[in-house]
């Protein structure tokens, strides 16, 4: 299936009144007038980083930026393209070009060391598994903004082998390609939290009732790594929170895409909320999130409440409930995605973590199999089940498909904005 059937599907969908891109609650600026300024970098949704065969690795609904990292205080820098922008995590992680990882980072950055001179490494949990590698210090430059001396993670096993306690978390996301491949040269976590872990990781893990989850390790000269505490200011942190200005959050601005998707889409990653004329919150609805970063989704609109839902650019589709509760068939091949026989026009509500406000969201779900059969990389109507839970344990994961045609604000915890104190999401 290529262009003609897609066009036919589009016409059919339009005839049925379920044409894709206009059915959003807030059309945003649709990318008509991209903002300019030193607080803006290009946000690209395309097929992803270049793989070993010279072609893109083939990411669906990944929003990427180019990040510049520099040896702190110097002009010795490296640009890293295709770093995935993730509002669901905090901190910059870059794949090393170490002969195995297949990433880009070669710049020799200084390691973070503890007071005993041991190097610090990290095992950060993600849904797929974990990223492992040393914590390094870098100046992180994004457009005209700079996070000086930020802690970042280099994803690599070259310095230190993965400890058993880290390997117990699942699969190691240690390479660009392969199984599982990161399919990006890194992850730029610009979520609602200042650090990836927070206060718990600053508590001595050896204390009997320690709430330290054991993400950080100290590694001695022999290469042996053991779990350790790392103070907040040394933890891998959201670089935006470290900027000298425009540091209270971000906006992801992506244009709407046609029902059949688009090969590539360009939008903007804007730093700061209400700090300049180009990042005003305007009439966006503001949804406070709880200390897990979650809000409540309601489905169908005025139906059942699902707390624990979240808006997350690091997920690719709109994942919600399960096939058994929505009645939408899953794709036989594309596991976890929905394959309705014709495009569905659905509505839900989002509700702030404290119970208000409540806002309507309309969204479309097309057959993921049909979408994937095109060569496109950006789809607003890609949906699937969210892990298959049942009852009130179900939730919504509003992934990148939700972001098209919207300006989505993520305000950082404890940060002051014209829309109130973070954390919140707004659109």
């Amino acid at each position: 299936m290529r262009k003609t059937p897609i066009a036919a599907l589009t016409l059919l969908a339009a005839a049925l009144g379920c044409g894709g891109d206009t059915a959003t609650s807030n059309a945003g600026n649709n990318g008509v007038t991209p903002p300019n300024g030193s607080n803006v970098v290009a946000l690209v949704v395309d097929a992803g980083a270049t793989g070993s065969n010279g072609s893109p690795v083939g990411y669906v609904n990944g929003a990427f930026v180019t990040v510049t990292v520099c040896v702190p205080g110097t002009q010795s820098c490296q640009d890293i393209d295709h770093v995935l922008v993730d509002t669901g995590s905090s901190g910059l992680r870059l794949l090393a070009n170490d002969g195995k990882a297949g990433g880009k980072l070669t710049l020799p950055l200084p390691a973070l060391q503890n007071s005993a001179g041991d190097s610090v490494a990290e095992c950060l949990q993600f849904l797929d598994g974990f990223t492992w590698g040393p914590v390094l210090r870098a100046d992180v430059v994004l457009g005209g903004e700079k996070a000086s001396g930020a802690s970042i993670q280099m994803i690599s096993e070259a310095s230190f082998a993965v400890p058993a306690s880290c390997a117990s978390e699942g699969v190691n996301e240690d390479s660009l390609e392969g199984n599982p491949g990161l399919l990006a040269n890194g992850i730029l976590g610009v979520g609602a939290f200042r650090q990836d872990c927070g206060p718990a990781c600053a508590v001595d893990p050896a204390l009997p009732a320690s709430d330290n989850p054991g993400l950080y390790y100290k590694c001695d000269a022999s290469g042996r790594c053991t779990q350790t505490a790392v103070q907040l200011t040394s933890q891998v942190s959201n670089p935006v929170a470290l900027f000298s200005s425009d540091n209270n959050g971000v906006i992801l601005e992506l244009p709407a895409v046609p029902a059949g998707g688009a090969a590539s889409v360009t939008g903007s990653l804007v730093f700061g909320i209400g700090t300049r004329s180009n990042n005003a919150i305007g009439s966006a609805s503001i949804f406070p999130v709880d200390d897990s970063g979650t809000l409540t989704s309601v489905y169908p609109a005025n139906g059942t409440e699902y707390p624990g839902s979240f808006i997350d650019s690091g997920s690719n589709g709109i994942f919600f409930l399960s096939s058994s509760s929505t009645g939408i068939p899953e794709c036989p091949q594309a596991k976890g995605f929905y394959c309705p026989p014709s495009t569905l026009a659905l509505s839900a509500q989002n509700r702030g973590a404290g119970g208000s406000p409540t806002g309507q969201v309309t969204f479309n779900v097309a057959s993921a199999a049909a979408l994937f059969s095109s060569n496109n990389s950006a789809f607003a109507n890609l949906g699937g089940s969210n892990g298959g839970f049942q009852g009130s344990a179900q939730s919504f994961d509003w992934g990148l498909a939700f972001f098209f045609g919207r300006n989505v604000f993520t305000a950082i915890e404890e940060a002051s904005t014209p829309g109130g104190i973070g954390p919140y999401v707004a659109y």
Partner: protein
Amino acid sequence: MRIRRFSAFCLPAVAAVLLGLPRHARATLGGNLTTVKTDQSRMKASLQVSSGDQYAVHEMKAATGTTVREYATPDGKIFAVAWQGPWRPDMRQLLGEYFTDYQEAAKGKRTGHSGPLASATDRVVIESSGRPRAFRGRAWVPDLVPAGVDPAEIR
């Protein structure tokens, strides 16, 4: 099925360690109830037990804020586990012999970096979603689930 809470108690982690519970566990999912104690010790967790006619739920709440529930048949076989919290528990410990199934399922995932995981084989069903600071998941062994128990009860 009605679950009747008949006992609830807490053990500080220190006490668990002093009791000499083994630090290294046998399989949990698919294993025996004795492994619950090992999990509790490793997680530095409080334990609450709810028993019904068809199964008992051993709920552990760790200091990290993560809750693990282990579902055991009357003869002490753990047929399901569920987890929820800012960080996952030790998945190798929790899933035991099914840990490799979990790894294989993660490798086949195509939902973007942090999209959900759902895998069902004849051996084990594994479902997981979330991102840092908010993870949630469950797993069960179809062959071990007691007759008449709806997997929807596993959460």
